[in-house]
């Protein structure tokens, strides 16, 4: 089998997903080639052929041009599988390729099982095993699902691609994340609130527990989206990545985007009414309880 891996670069830097793509190809025991719209000064550690288009010419974010470049290489390499990271870049580009190639698309693959692909469904509460019915297919990989155990090595054999900027979307550059008022990445103790707190007034009890433990309070995405607290408190893929000594997850079900931001915590205590909540996968202790009852008692006992 032959696979074409689509690496991603942002702001002139190669993203770490490139290593996961090549590890995925190894998992399949497949021949691979890689394509990158990036820069010669930021090449992946990869031992195969790398088709490289200069982001300064092609545009770092320009789906129509990237699609065209990939289609050219697909015609040359004839892969059965085109693999992208399941990121804001990958999930934007993959369906464009699938339509252009009359290919099946399978999103957010977490595992390969007997030649079929496993994907999460319903907030990772269920998993489906899927097979494409087309000769060529496009897949995206969940971040972190195919992390290689060792640092990748190798020097790519670079084949340059010409690209001219055109396309129907204009890209006007990046806007940096807001300066964070709270740096959770250095906190030793974090108590985080999830959707399970029910209403904004209950954030006070999370804050009180954080204070009683001598830590900071954080929040999952739904709490921030509902504007119950500010974005600088958000833990997860689009917020902060944290690694405290103690992480207390209150009413957080454990969406992959949240887990990615906190799974390096040394000790995780989860408080949740659902003992099957995915947060249980990373929790050292899961207390099955209503946080609105348990959290104030914990705070009170700590404050004595």
């Amino acid at each position, binding site marked *: 089998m032959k696979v074409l891996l689509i690496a991603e670069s942002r702001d002139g830097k190669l993203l770490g997903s490139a290593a996961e793509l090549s590890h995925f190809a190894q998992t399949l025991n497949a021949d691979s080639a890689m394509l990158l719209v990036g820069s010669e000064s930021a090449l992946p550690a990869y031992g195969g052929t790398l088709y490289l288009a200069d982001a300064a010419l092609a545009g770092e*974010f320009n789906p129509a041009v990237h699609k065209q470049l990939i289609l050219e290489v697909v015609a040359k390499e004839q892969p059965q599988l085109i693999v992208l990271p399941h990121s804001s870049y990958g999930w934007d580009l*993959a*369906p464009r390729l699938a339509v252009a190639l009359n290919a099946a698309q399978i999103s957010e693959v977490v595992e390969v099982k007997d030649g079929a692909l496993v994907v999460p*469904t319903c907030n990772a509460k269920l998993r489906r095993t899927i097979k494409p019915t087309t000769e060529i297919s496009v897949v995206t990989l969940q971040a972190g699902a195919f992390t290689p155990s060792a640092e990748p090595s190798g020097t790519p054999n670079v084949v340059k691609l010409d690209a001219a900027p055109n396309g129907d979307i204009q890209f006007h550059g*990046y806007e940096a994340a807001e300066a964070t008022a709270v740096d959770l990445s250095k906190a030793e103790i974090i108590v985080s609130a999830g959707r399970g707190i029910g209403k904004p007034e209950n954030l006070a009890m999370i804050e009180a527990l954080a204070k009683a433990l001598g830590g900071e309070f954080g929040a999952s995405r739904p709490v921030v989206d509902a504007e119950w607290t500010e974005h600088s408190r958000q833990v997860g893929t689009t917020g902060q990545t944290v690694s405290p*000594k103690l992480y207390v997850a209150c009413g957080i079900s454990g969406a992959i985007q949240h887990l990615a931001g906190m799974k390096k915590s040394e*000790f995780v205590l989860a408080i949740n009414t659902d003992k099957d909540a995915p947060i*249980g996968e990373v929790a*050292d202790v899961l207390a099955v309880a209503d946080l609105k009852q348990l959290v104030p008692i914990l705070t009170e006992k700590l404050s004595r």
Partner: protein
Amino acid sequence: MKLLVCIKQVPDMESKFKVNSEGLWYDSADLAWRMNEYDEYAVEQAVQLKEQLGDCDLTVLCIGSERVKETMKKALAMGCDRGVHIADDDSHRKDPFAIASLIANFAKDKGFDLIFTGLQSQDRGSAQVGVMVAELLGLPCLTTLVEFAFENGTVHGKRELEGGTKGKVSCATPALVTCQLGLNTPRYPTLPNIMKAKKKELLSIPAADLSPADSRTQTLSMAPPEKKGGGLILEGEPAELAEQLLQILKEKTTVLA
């Protein structure tokens, strides 16, 4: 302007899910249904654009069984002008490409200036349908928007990237945009608007009339993820639990020293 917003009805994600008798999808019995969260942002943004421009006709489209009409009524109560229900009891068996083909076949001769969809659904989570509809219709597509503005026929948006960075983008209409969580604050329908919504047009079209494409994927099985050991699970009275938890934190962590 002619606007279209595509929505999906999904189960509440806090539900306990069971696999159905076929073993290929979740059992739809005993679930509470609601509008896909991403689509609430799409509906809100479409309604806000209508309020901004005044002279707009906003259609909400939803694919599924009779049951999805309840969710469509919410979208109508939020401010959509008319509903198109693509009646399909089998929609859960269609893959994202087959679903996208239904929407594209409906929209292709309607002259929509702007189409809104959610970034993805909460149940299937493929993030494919919106982009595929745009590609099938030959429209530019801005995805993952957390900011949206419309001026002189051009859509300006900010895409949410990983780590809190945003990418600034724009494109001319006609176009399609996919909406990320946090794009706006979806409104709650008011009682008068809920009453008004009952009188709005809600047209049903059988899916077969729109010649859906075949699915390109086959689901072999569905199951809950295998538990990877996980940690200790504690149940009991809150006061006793709290005592146990503090004991564990004292023994297993250094933070209570």
